[in-house]
Each structure stands twice: as C-alpha cells, then as structure tokens.
C-alpha cells in the first residue's frame, strides 16, 4: 500500500488483515460519546468526487474528522473540470496545495492509476468506473467477520449487474485471497465469462436459486442503468428473475446475511421485506465503512 490505495487486487493478504484488525479497534470508537481523536491532527485530506456519491464521500469525511484531520471536499459540478480543465491539470493543481492524501472517485476505470503515475500525493481510490472500490470490499469483509469467525470456506453469492460493478471486482479479489468461494450471478449479458478467471474459487451462474443455495452471504448489487450503454437485458423482468425476495432465503444457509453496497432500489433488485429484515446487514456495512476508512487513512498518512 505504498503511497496510497488503488485496489484490492494488488494487496497482499497480511496488509488486508492488518487494516481489518485496526478497523476492529475503530469499531469500538463509533460507540463512544466522544469519537474524535487527534491521531491525524494537522493533516489535510482532499476528497475529490467526480461522480455523485452520498455514503462513500460522507463516510470518508467522517473518518478523516474522527481522526482529527482537516478535510476539503470537491464535487465535479463545482470544479474546474466543468470549465474544460483536464483531469491531470485539476489534480496537479490540488496537489500543489500540498494535501497529505487525495481521496478520489471517478467514472473512468483506471483514472486513479493514471494519476498515481503523475502525482506524488498518495491517492485513495473511492471507486473508479467499473474497476475497483477497495474500501467497499474492506468494509464488506469487516461486516462478514462481525457475523463469522473467518472468511475461509464461506460461500458468498454476489448477484446483479456484475459486468459494471467495481464492488463485485474488489470483493472477488478480497474474498478469493481469503479462501471464500464466490458465486457471481446475473443476466448473461451482465456476466462476462472471463470473470471466472480473474481470481481463484470464482464460479458463475445465471440461475439465482443456484447462486443462493447454501450461501453464507448474499450480496445484492444495484443495476447500474447509468452505465448501460445499450439495452443489455430486458429491464422490465429483472426483478422477477434477479430480485431478492423472502422466499429465496430458505435456499441459503440458516444464518445467512444479506448485504448491499447501496444505494438500494426497493422492488428492483431487493424486496423491502428482505431489506428491512433481521438478516439484512446493510446498515452495519455503512457503519463499518467509517471504521475501515479510518484504518485506511491512518495507515496511509502515518
């Protein structure tokens, strides 16, 4: 994790373990009356979100503030990018103000990787196009570990728009590194066959019942209509075949948990009954997001 955090794929297992261990410490902090410390006092973090985001941006900002760092947040609409400046010029300008780290979300896959080659400031990838979303996979792992002693041997079903999902890619890499079996499921046009080869222990199916059978964890993904460049599937019947409903859950392991990176679309990929049920860990994920991002920021800035 030299210099920043671009993705899960390039991380070694001990690095991930160490972040998760530290995040566990920060979990406890979320329940204290005074949550703020001064571990990163005097440090400056710039959040640049070229793509809309509510939870990730807020989560990074809260994480930084709880560590005592100062933050500045910029969104695309109000930035010089909307005045025709190139991405690399915008980032060079920000870097010239000497922040200690830049947290960035961008709609282009590889945008932070491209910038990392031209910038000395550490870059934390808060989601790049359809490539990776490393802190999401870390908080998902932390959430699973709240319910299970280890990831080894777990069966995790990831269901939805896999092709366009950076959450799926980062989770596949992380879960695979820790010995979990990952089943990817979605309509065939959203499920490229090559995904089975991007990491060990990954299988694909377009049959939702098969994906859920014996699953320890079900991760639902949003259909990213904004990334559909052509009608890749008939959206009208999506919920019928790929929407998670209560009746599916009897196929899974009794102690199954349901996760979703948000934002959820009730009635499109998940029914309200499931989203609001006891087995839903969706709000735990959000809570863990702050702890994981504190661990990541601390690691990169110290």
């Amino acid at each position, binding site marked *: 994790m030299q210099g920043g955090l671009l993705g899960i*794929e390039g991380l070694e297992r001990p690095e991930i373990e160490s972040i998760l261990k530290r995040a566990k410490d920060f979990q406890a902090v979320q329940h204290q009356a005074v949550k703020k410390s001064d571990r990163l006092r005097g440090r400056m973090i710039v959040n640049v979100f070229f793509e809309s985001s509510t939870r990730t941006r807020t989560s990074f900002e809260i994480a930084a503030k709880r560590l005592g760092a100062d933050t500045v947040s910029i969104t695309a609409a109000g930035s010089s990018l909307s005045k025709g400046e190139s991405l*690399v010029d915008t980032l060079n300008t920000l870097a010239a103000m000497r922040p200690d780290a830049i947290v960035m979300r961008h709609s282009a*896959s590889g*945008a932070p990787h491209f910038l990392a080659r031209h910038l000395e400031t550490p870059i934390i990838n808060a989601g790049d196009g359809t*490539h990776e979303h490393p802190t999401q996979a870390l908080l998902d792992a932390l959430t699973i570990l709240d319910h299970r002693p280890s990831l080894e041997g777990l069966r995790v079903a990831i269901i939805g728009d896999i092709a366009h999902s950076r959450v799926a*890619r980062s989770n596949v890499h992380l879960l695979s590194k820790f010995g979990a079996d990952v089943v990817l499921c979605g309509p065939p046009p959203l499920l490229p066959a090559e995904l089975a080869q991007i990491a060990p222990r990954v299988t694909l199916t377009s049959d939702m019942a098969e994906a859920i059978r014996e699953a320890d964890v079900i991760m639902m993904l949003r259909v990213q209509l904004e990334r559909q*460049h052509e009608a890749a599937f008939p959206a009208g019947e999506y919920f019928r075949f790929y929407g998670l409903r209560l009746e599916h859950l009897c196929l899974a392991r009794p102690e199954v948990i349901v996760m979703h990176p948000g934002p959820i679309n009730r009635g499109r990929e998940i029914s309200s009954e499931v989203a609001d049920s006891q087995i839903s860990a969706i709000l735990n994920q959000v809570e863990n997001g702050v702890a994981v991002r504190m661990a990541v920021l601390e690691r990169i800035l110290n």
Partner: protein
Amino acid sequence: MVDPASGHDGLADVLLQDGVVAAVGPNLDATGAEVFDAGGMVVAPGFIDMHVHLREPGFEHAETIESGARAAAAGGFTSICCMPNTAPVNDSATVTSYIIERARRYAVVNVFPIGAITKDSAGEELAAIGSMKKAGIVAISDDGRPVMNSMVMRRAMEYAGGYGLPVIDHCEDLHLSAGGDMHEGLESVRRGLRGIPSCSEDVMVARDILLTELTGARFHVAHISSRHSLAMVAQAKARRLPVSCEATPHHFALSDEQSAPYDSNYKMKPPLRSACDRDTVAGGIADGVVDAIATDHAPHAGSEKMQEFERCPFGIIGLETAIGVSLDRLVHSGRVGLSRLVELFTTGPARILNLDRGRLTAGAPGDVTIFDLETEWTYDVNKSASKSNNSPFHGVKFRGGPAATIVAGRIVWKRET
C-alpha cells in the same frame, strides 16, 4: 543486397544515377560517385509503408507531412501512403493535390495519398474517387470510420474496381465495438474496461470478402489482428479471390496482457489482442497469408494522450520502430528469412497498390533502404522525428535497425554513429 523481386540475395554493388538504379552487380565502376559503404549491412529496395497518418491538413499540432516523412526516413521507409482522415478529409482531387504538392515541397520520402471511400468519410455518399485517382491516389479507404452500410460498400467496390483501385477497409463493426477501449477478454474484464471483441473485426472481414466475390474488386484488410479474420483471408486466397491484408508490428509483437494498464501508449484500433491472436498474425506473416507489414503510424499530441484511458484517442506512432520490432519478432526469432521480411516491406505493398517500386534492378526508382542486423540500440521516443511521442516501444532495446535511407538517389537519413 536482398531484392526479392529479382531473387537476388548476395554481395553486390548498387549504382544510382539521376535518381534511378543505373546498375546492380559485383565490382561496379563508381568513378566520381559518392560511395556509401554498406559492408556488413543489408541493402534492400526502398521500404514502403502503406498505412500511415500524416495529420496534414488539419491536425498539424500532432504531425505534418514534413515531420511524418522525416520519421519515415529515420525508420528506413522511402515511400509512405497517407490515410485520408485529415481535416478536411481527403475526399476530393483538391485535397489530394494539396497533399501531393505539400509532399513535393516538404517531404524527404515519397508520399502516396489514399483517398476516402465516401464524402467526409461519413459512410453515405461516394467520394470523387475517379477525380482523386487522376490526382494521384493509390487506393481508397475510410480508415478509422469504416463504411457500415453494406450497400454503400458494394457500390464503392464496383466503382473503384473500374479504376483498378484497391479498397482498403479498417474492418470494424462499430455497433459491436461501441465504447470499447481494449480487446474484449480477461484483461478488459479485470481492468473494468469495455471490450472490443474480435468478432467486431471478423464480421466485417467476412462481409467484405463476400462483397469482393460479388463485385470482383480488389479488397485489402488493414491492420489485421484477429485469428479468425486471418483464417478467412487465407480461405479467400485459396479461392483465388483478390483479397490481401497487412499486419502491424504491434499486432504481431504485443498482446493485451502485455499492455500496461490504463497506459494510452497501448491504446489503438484494432486493439492488441490475445497472445494467441498475436502469434497467429506472426504465423500468417511467415506462411504468406499476410502480404505486407504496415505501421498504422498514428500520431497524437501529448495532451490528447494525457487523459483518462477511456478519453484517450486510439493510435500509436510506429515508423521508427517497424524494422527493429520486425527483426526482433520475425527474423531473430527464426520465423521468417531476411528475403521474406524485405518482401513484406517492398514487393508486398507495391503489388497491392500497383506501385512501380520495391525492386532494385536497372531502371527502377533509386529508393534504397539500408539496415543492419546486429547493432544494438534503444528507442528514445523523445528524440523522434515525429511531432508526437505515443509509442509503447519507448526504452525498448533492439538488435538491428535502419542505417541509411536513400530516396531517388539521395541519402535522406543516416544513422548517427
């Protein structure tokens, strides 16, 4: 001296006089002539690159006829054919004449324009193909903006056939490739980039071969990159259809897995394909399915390539590295002999374009390419004669490369020693 046209492959002197080859043979009398000692080197007919982009008129910030021609000379080429995707598009005799006139004044190598198939390369209405032919084009192509309407392509083939012009197609079904940034496969999925599937190339090669059969026109596949397309060209040739194809050094030297992630110096169309496709293209060069090596030299200014990968334009420069890469991947690796290599740069393209060039016999144009097989050198793109520096071969060490380039009897480039 290696001259595939005459079958000569051995020691010889070459005497150039008044811009043409005066004599070829042992121990020629050269009293009063300037002598170039090519001892230990290969002397070949001037190399022809049938696929380059010179960006003039319209994009002079990226390349000009003058700078592109100098890069060609530094790469050992004596003749280059420039694609029509300039601004304005070369779709009229006026633009063709402009290019030829600029080349006459500023280019150190021969420049042969290729005209557009359709007006503005918009794929709808045929360009003034006959008038452009009169003005000097050697082929037609809507390179980069392929003709999607099969009826228009049929009419273009019929019409061009009447003028003996080959139709060069950049074979790409734009619907199948829409939005793609690299070859569709494991690497595109891993990197979260939209893919350009091989079949986007294959379906157009298939269509054009069928139209060739229907129209009798001569059809040439630009920068072939997919193994299925190669198989179809081989089959068409076996059926004696007038079909030919070219391959670029990057397509027989590199694959998608070898491309640096999100580095636009590896972004071009067609994209670097799988290792299997790469090796099949190299095999096609060895077994004769591929007729010519062409660079698809495509300069882009630095700022255009300094963007998010998906926003970067397609294309890399290639004139200066073509011989080095070809020697490395084809000759030193033992895939093809020297004479076959020379063929791919000389008689191969000359035959496709009906150029009276590519041979070293008395009376032929005095264009000579001299290269060697052993000198080690490292490509420094920052010293390129091209105005652009978008190359994946920067910093690559080569064994053997161009030593001198002679156009119409004049040394236009010589390697620094």
